[in-house]
């Protein structure tokens, strides 16, 4: 018998089942079809304004920095300000996302390249698919629009989140993901910048991923 058949038949023998029971099959099919939710904490819920406030509180707690901008047009200037204040070069990598391509980077004095990262980029900007108020998390999708290497290789990661894409809980983002079609290769839920506490339980930022995560929430 193949390993696969052996393991499945061992499981069935241990459970005392055959795998053909209609009640079990129906219960499994129903769960997969209806995707029931577990208890949803109240913390992320509330009006749009409350959810935004909660998102900012939670993201800040995990050492991300958050600014609220009136429009996406203000993003290049905000990134330029951040880089100048941190004494960093005004260079940036982005993907092909049309919402980023449409912004006037040059006017802000930024030198912007497009594509994946090979590890040499200090700064990158991504456009988030969604956000989660409950935990201050961002949800990013891999692909040409926002290459996954931009989320992990650069030292400083800038993320644009439209306020309209902010949800109270992860479950609401999952609904949107299913509506979006088949899942991309990776869905990255990012909660703050990279960190490690592996040496004497001392929490340090910037383990392997970005040392800084700067979130720009755009209202319009």
């Amino acid at each position, binding site marked *: 018998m193949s*390993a*696969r058949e*052996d393991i499945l038949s*061992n*499981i069935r023998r*241990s*459970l005392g*089942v055959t*795998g053909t029971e209609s009640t*079990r099959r129906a*219960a*499994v099919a129903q*769960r*997969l079809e209806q*995707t*029931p*939710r*577990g*208890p949803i*904490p*109240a*913390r992320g819920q509330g009006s749009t304004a409350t959810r935004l406030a909660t998102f900012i509180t*939670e993201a800040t707690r*995990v050492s991300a920095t958050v600014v609220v901008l009136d429009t996406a047009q203000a993003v290049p200037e905000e990134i330029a300000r951040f880089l100048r204040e941190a004494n960093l070069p005004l260079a940036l990598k982005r993907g092909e996302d049309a919402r980023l391509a449409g912004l006037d980077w040059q006017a802000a004095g930024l030198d912007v390249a497009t*594509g*994946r990262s090979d*590890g040499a980029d200090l700064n990158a900007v991504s456009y988030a698919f969604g956000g989660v108020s409950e935990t201050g*998390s961002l949800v990013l999708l*891999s*692909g*040409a629009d926002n*290459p*996954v*290497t931009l989320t*992990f290789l650069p030292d400083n990661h800038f993320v644009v989140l439209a306020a309209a894409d902010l949800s109270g809980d*992860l479950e609401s983002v*999952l609904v949107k993901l299913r509506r979006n079609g*088949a*899942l991309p*290769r*990776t*869905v*990255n*839920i990012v*909660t*703050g910048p*990279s*960190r*490690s*506490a*592996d*040496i*004497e*339980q*001392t929490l*340090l930022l910037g*383990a*392997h*991923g*970005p040392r800084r995560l700067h979130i720009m929430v755009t209202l319009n």
Partner: protein
Amino acid sequence: MTLHPTTPDFKDNAHQALHDPELQKALGHVQHGFIYKRQSAVERLPEFETLRESARDLKNHVLQNLDLYLETYERNVTSSGGQVHFARTSAEACETIVNICKSHGAKSVTKGKSMVSEEIGLNAAIEAAGMQAVETDLGEYIIQLRGETPSHIIAPAVHLTKEQVEGDFRRVHTHLDGARDLSEPVQLLTEARGVLREKFLAADVGITGANFLVAETGTSIIVTNEGNGDLTQSLPKVHIVIASIEKIVPTLEDASLLLRVLARSATGQDMSVYTTLSTGPRRPQDPDGPEHYHVVLVDNGRSAMLGTEFEDMLRCIRCGACMNHCPVYHAIGGHAYGWVYPGPMGAVMTPSLIGVEKGGHLPNASTFCGRCESVCPVKIPLPKLMRHWRENEFERHLTPAVQRFGLKIWGFFAKNPRLYSFATRAAMTTLAWLGRDKGRFASLPLAKGWTDYRDLPAPQGDTFQAQWRKRQQEARR
């Protein structure tokens, strides 16, 4: 990784651990860090208890239907362009992974943290096949340099001090300036980041574990704080996921439920920094990501635990809360347990996976204080399961003769309540009289195991049974 468990030598291991000053210093961090952080996270979430109950029920539902969910999962991995391999044993799992690596002509393999890869001895198998295996989680990297195994399932280097890590980095990173300052943890972290960045970019294959496998979508989920799991899977041309069969959850919503209890129980975070859902290899338009995606599903004794008194253990989501709260773990650390899984979860898993003949000491090393069960996010009755192992050991006559004799004597008295009451009263009165001056004993015959480390208080007042009777009588009045 340990292919040859030292679990049968648990007593000697524990004795050595208690007398290791560096280990004792490092273990102080466990006691104070983890417990306080978890408690704060739980207090911030009023729904936590309800979530634990839902998490327990969800895992029970999965275990009762594991065959069907595995089939669904396999189908969905395949339809998203990935490949699923089943492995009955450690050897089969290692062979499958080594063959995949070889078929891609791999020289260097990076690894995210994976306990099941420790269980099957994967690094040794990769190295034996002439390839280099590089652990990329900071803690795992440190212990790999030392040739050690993880001493904790989520904080593998928790047994080390920063001075020890500095020594290892100086010994191994000889290409760096010998006069550099490495006295602070941040300097150690920065150095490891630089060294490992090169390894990430050079790797041919990346191997990660999985916290959850989602049947609905054929997705594997990992959580990390460092981002090493993502660099491991997104840079090389091949991504291999290794996971044990009980990691399956039905839907993405179910994964979300477990995520809410996982990080809080583990590190006291609401969410780990990176939660990554991976489905298949890179899409045709993708500029990055692996071209091949494999999943190796390992049984290694788990299917035999289903339907037994140890089935509850398969709910475990490997958060480490049980060891973080265990007084025995606090005293001796993880290595004394002698195999891959330490602490209360290890005391139940180890005999299940390597046999009670070798692992029998572990379920005996517990006071049954119950803290592990009280913090377990999926409510595994760990003390009860350890007791099952003790019974199992006794029934199979594996318990030492002296211990069996002692149990028999106790059993004789316990079955004769009058005699029991008389004997305990007599013993107590005698001890109270002997210890009347100091109120405690610095040494007592047959009690060296206790009095070597602390005094035994002399009995005061009446026996427990007498006090209980009195209380009951008063309550009735």
